[in-house]
């Protein structure tokens, strides 16, 4: 029997624009990237740990719960106000581990260097990585270097992988969120993304907006030892808070409600977003606790404890 629905499908042309080649948006952290993961990577590598789709995989190794993650860094320019590709490569990866409730321990570093890169630049970046690692209490224990022909790389790309240990008996991930959970973010959104964008495009504002990239594992550990029941966390990188919330809601099959007026965005970042036509909720934050999204058992006292005790920035409430 033909229903109205069948008729509709028959009369409707096959959608165009299904991509046969990789587009920039496939790496943008949004819908296309999600499609890529769902149609290429998940079917290819299908396994229970991967299918959790968290920032880091949590694995059982002889009774110890290890968290394992990897991330590649291709940011341009290599140096930007408030940071550089090296510090970012540390913060991003340790924060991915922290998002699984793990204490970050060891990192690897893979360098893809472009022929002609200034040695001085490489040295400054390595130095910055070491300082960031020290701050985050992790060590680089293995690495790799490749050089590609001039024109085949943007100065340098860095990949870091990290291992951490999940010490407390916590299950953290999108599938753990529950109806009634609250969301805590520990600071204002969008500074990192706008800082990079402004430098890249040569945009000048009254004040320089600096990236607030930083490690946040200690904050997470504090929250966990406080006994706050965290169900899910996200480092709000590409795609910002809105994309992370969408992805978590999608994975968990639940609806997440955000109150725009309760989300802190600094005045200069809001201004830059107005000028550039961006929504601050979609702007990237990288490796920065201020941009962490936590959902946990939403009793009023737990909310208060999480948003004041364990998260220093929240003492400066509006």
């Amino acid at each position, binding site marked *: 029997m033909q229903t109205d629905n069948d008729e509709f499908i028959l009369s*409707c042309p096959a*959608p165009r624009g299904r*991509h046969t080649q990789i*587009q920039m948006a496939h790496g943008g952290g949004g819908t296309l990237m999600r499609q890529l993961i769902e149609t290429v990577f998940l079917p290819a590598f299908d396994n229970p740990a991967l299918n959790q789709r968290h920032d880091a995989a949590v694995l059982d190794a002889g009774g110890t719960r290890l968290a394992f993650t990897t991330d590649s860094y291709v940011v341009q320019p290599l140096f930007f106000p408030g940071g550089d590709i090296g510090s970012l490569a540390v913060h991003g990866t340790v924060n991915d581990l922290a998002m699984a409730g793990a204490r970050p321990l060891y990192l690897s570093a893979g360098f893809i260097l472009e022929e002609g890169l200034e040695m001085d630049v490489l040295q400054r970046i390595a130095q910055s990585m070491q300082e960031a690692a020290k701050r985050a209490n992790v060590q680089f224990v293995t690495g790799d270097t490749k050089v590609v022909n001039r024109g085949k790389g943007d100065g340098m790309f860095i990949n870091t992988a990290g291992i951490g240990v999940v010490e407390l008996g916590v299950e953290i991930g999108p599938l753990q969120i529950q109806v009634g959970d609250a*969301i805590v973010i520990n600071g204002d959104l969008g500074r990192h993304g706008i800082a990079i964008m402004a430098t890249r495009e040569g945009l000048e504002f009254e004040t320089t907006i600096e990236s607030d990239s930083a490690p946040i594992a200690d904050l997470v550990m504090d929250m966990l030892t406080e006994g706050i029941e965290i169900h899910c966390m996200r480092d709000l990188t590409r795609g910002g808070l809105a994309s992370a919330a969408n992805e978590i809601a999608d994975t968990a099959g639940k609806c997440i409600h955000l109150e725009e007026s309760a989300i802190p965005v600094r005045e200069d970042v809001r201004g830059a977003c107005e000028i550039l036509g961006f929504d601050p909720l979609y702007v990237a934050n990288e490796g920065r606790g201020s941009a962490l999204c936590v959902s946990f058992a939403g009793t009023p006292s737990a909310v208060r404890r*999480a*948003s004041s005790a364990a998260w220093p920035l929240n003492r400066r409430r509006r």
Partner: protein
Amino acid sequence: MKFVDEYRAAAPARRFSEAIRQLVTRPHTIMEICGGQTHSIVKFGIDELLPKTITLVHGPGCPVCVTPLELIDKALLIAARPDVIFCSFGDMLRVPGSHGDLLSLKAAGGDVRTVYSPLDAVNLARGNPDRRVVFFAVGFETTAPVNALAVEQARLEGLTNFSILCSHVLVPPAMEAILSSKQNRVQGFLAAGHVCTVMGYTEYEPLARKYRVPIVVTGFEPLDILHGVYLCVKQLEEGRAELENQYRRSVSRAGNVAAQELIRKVFMVTPRKWRGIGEIARSGLGLRPEYAAFDAELQFGLKSMDTEEPSECMSGLVLQGLLKPSECPAFGAACAPEHPLGAPMVSSEGACAAYYRYRRARPVSPVTELVT
């Protein structure tokens, strides 16, 4: 934030909403011309603050949306050439042509670059003398002055490798086309504040008289729009049909005279095809013959190309205010930002994009709340 927050404040918005409610005694249909206004309306839920008897319909004021298919096809042909650097504003890149879009072309190896100003394209032309730099000059009267400036700058510098693919359109002829259509249901207009900042509003006064329709030059923030609707409804209720200026902080009657002179120097009024609507007489701007060296269609021999528009996209009806994006059977299914059937789904000012972004699904019930 100054100049933003005061125009988005909730308390005066409620006062305007109440004042409009007090005024209305019968149904009215009002069209906002500009896609920027459409986005504000849908994003801030302004239509929901109005009495049910007031219908806001969305106008053709999205330059990307009304750019005809053949021009996108021409852009794709030019951008595919190895000797060309093709420059465009970002939201043109995802608009589908007959075969693919500029972003796919970029992925396939075309040198397609996003710029923030046509003057960036002039800089590229100066810095790459061995390449031909083409800027996709799309827009209403708002962007015409800066595009004219870019062409004039290239002429003054004697650049021979810079040209523009010109698809400029004009607002008043489009309003007249809508008003003279048999299907028209628009009783009042919110005219586009940015366009009038450049052009002033003398062109609109005869339209208001001839078609007995109130036209209120309106800004883009929520309170601007509510104020514009208020003024428009007041005229309709009182049986007046005049030109009023809500957006006084930006718009004067004469407009920006220097910008208008620049437009007239470089461009002339031409017939122009509008996507989904068809050709409208004297509704576009083309380069004057003395600037032919900067006309990409001439330089690449594409003047005579003509493309049949496919029928599956109903954007023509949307752009004339005859169909709401959410009423289109393809909306959100066959047509979405990742695989659009037409430009209104991917343009930053497109009505379909606004509905997709803000009206696709409503939260059933709050599951989580945000605490900072």
